[in-house]
């Protein structure tokens, strides 16, 4: 297990470095800069601005400085929001984004896994077909369609929940964003759980447990469920990546001041340090959770460690 863990970590760290280097290189080598939009810049002012932000230095020097600052947790100043540093913007936005993301993962597991178990137990009957169709739809619908659609239905027509906004994190404002994010993951989990449980229920040891006279519920709970949930664990990594992506959409749709919105706005404003910082934070977050999911899987399934 320790060797497996070390090997997984040994892959993760260079990946993060590759991401940092690649994003940095892409941003700096590109034509066009953050000061292009302001029309009346004399060459002297322009040169001063470039010097202030270190944009006139050689590429490798900029890269070295950036890495050194990064090691101290300094992401540099934001170019579009002049009064803030990138670190401040990240600290402002990240807690909200993480709250929404974690709530969505929890909701997806709580809704998707039981739905999949029910569908597998009702195999071939109307309930199974309905759940399967619903799951198919949930997977096919993108968040930027379900989000506005839910806001339209529950916000504008039924008036049950606010359409958008935040109000310092009042739970009512977070219901629709969390549900929007959770739907596709829950649908995927339901489908996965159903397929995997059906497979396990066909195995010999489940049959023999039933033949020994154990009740259906006991066999399900004590014998079938644990192995059936292994694929679910392995899907948690991709699910996290999905939630991270989805948070960009959800924060835009519901006008939430999370870090995803800063990333999108930074990309539109060509705010290099902001985009770079956000990408690095998000990448580190995704990679860490992927690593955690891998380790969990390796712990549950010893066979996976030797692949």
């Amino acid at each position: 297990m320790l060797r497996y863990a070390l090997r997984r970590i040994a892959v993760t760290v260079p990946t993060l470095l590759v991401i940092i280097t690649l994003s940095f290189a892409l941003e700096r080598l590109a034509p066009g800069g953050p000061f292009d939009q302001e029309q009346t810049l004399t060459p002297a002012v322009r040169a001063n601005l470039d010097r202030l932000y270190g944009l006139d230095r050689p590429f490798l020097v900029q890269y070295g400085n950036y890495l050194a600052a990064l090691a101290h947790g300094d992401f540099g100043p934001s170019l579009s929001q002049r009064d803030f540093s990138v670190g401040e913007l990240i600290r402002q936005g990240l807690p909200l984004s993480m709250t929404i993301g974690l709530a969505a993962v929890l909701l997806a597991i709580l809704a998707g896994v039981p739905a999949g178990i029910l569908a597998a137990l009702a195999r071939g009957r109307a309930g199974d077909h309905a759940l399967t169709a619903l799951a198919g739809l949930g997977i096919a619908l993108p968040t930027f369609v379900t989000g506005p659609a839910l806001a339209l239905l529950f916000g504008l027509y039924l008036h049950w929940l606010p359409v958008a906004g935040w109000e310092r994190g009042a739970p009512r404002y977070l219901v629709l964003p969390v549900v929007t994010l959770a739907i596709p993951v829950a649908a995927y989990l339901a489908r996965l759980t159903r397929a995997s449980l059906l497979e396990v229920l066909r195995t010999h040891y489940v049959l023999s447990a039933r033949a020994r006279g154990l009740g259906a519920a006991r066999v399900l709970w004590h014998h079938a469920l644990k192995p059936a949930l292994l694929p679910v664990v392995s899907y948690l990594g991709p699910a996290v990546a999905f939630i991270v992506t989805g948070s960009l959409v959800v924060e835009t749709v519901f006008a939430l001041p999370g870090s995803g919105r800063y990333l999108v706005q930074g990309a539109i404003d060509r705010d290099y340090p902001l985009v770079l910082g956000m990408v690095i934070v998000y990448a580190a977050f995704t990679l860490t959770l992927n690593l955690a999911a891998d380790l969990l899987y390796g712990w549950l399934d010893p066979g996976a460690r030797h692949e």
Partner: protein
Amino acid sequence: MAGSIRGRAMSETRRAALWGAALLRLRANRPACLALAVLLGVALLALFAPLASPWAYDSLDWHHLAQPPTLGASHWFGTDRLGRDLFVRTLHGVRLSLLISVLASVLSVGIGLAWGAVAGFAGGRLDEWMMRFVDVLYALPYLFLVIVLSTLVGRGSIAVLLLGVAAVGWLTTARIVRGQTLQLKRREFIEAARATGLPTRAILLRHIVPNLAGTVAVYATLTVPQMILFESFLSFLGLGVQEPHASLGNLINAGAQEMESAPWMLLVPALFLVLLLVCLNLLGDGLRDALDPRES
């Protein structure tokens, strides 16, 4: 000489039989057939309807601003805040989405096929390095790289964006193709080809690649909706197609901002997007079942 001609004729009959059987199975799959018909209909509509309509995607109709959909009126699906015809704009969006996603899929499946087939057939150290490279790329959250890329090329440069998306979309295909190639190359007919002294490249092109056609067709079909999703996702965030051009993504975004007073501006493009995605997924699943009866 005569032997080889007969051999080729026979292999072509067998291939025809394989595809024929697949076609029969596909035809028996009601949802997939329906999906194919709907897709063809929407594609034809997207190609020709904008030509038939008196409105262009960017022409303004000052007499009908924010008009709700009305059958029989001059704007079937209504107009947006600027009086632009939503029917024409949505179909323009569909056309753009289909074009981009089909091109990106062809590109990414092509790269994946070449990469996977070479890695799987070569084996050994080369295979290991090629697949390690794929693993590393897999771990990259490539959405962010595309966002970074899209800040660079200037918003709206779809061609570069397309390349960026396609360049990362080939990973799954490469993995699957490699797996299939590994199985194929242990088969007798490959050994026979080797024994007759056929050069490696010829074995790859003549014996391996044609046998991968089914897999590749399935993955190409399943890649298209992913690409559509990706393009409209970026356009929705304001990083893809820009006004006045229409894409399903930026239409949905514009509609979401107006949904309080004009819900149709959101619903029309959203329904088209959902229709495309559901149909493409159904067709892809149908193709997979048809070409690989073992799985179902």
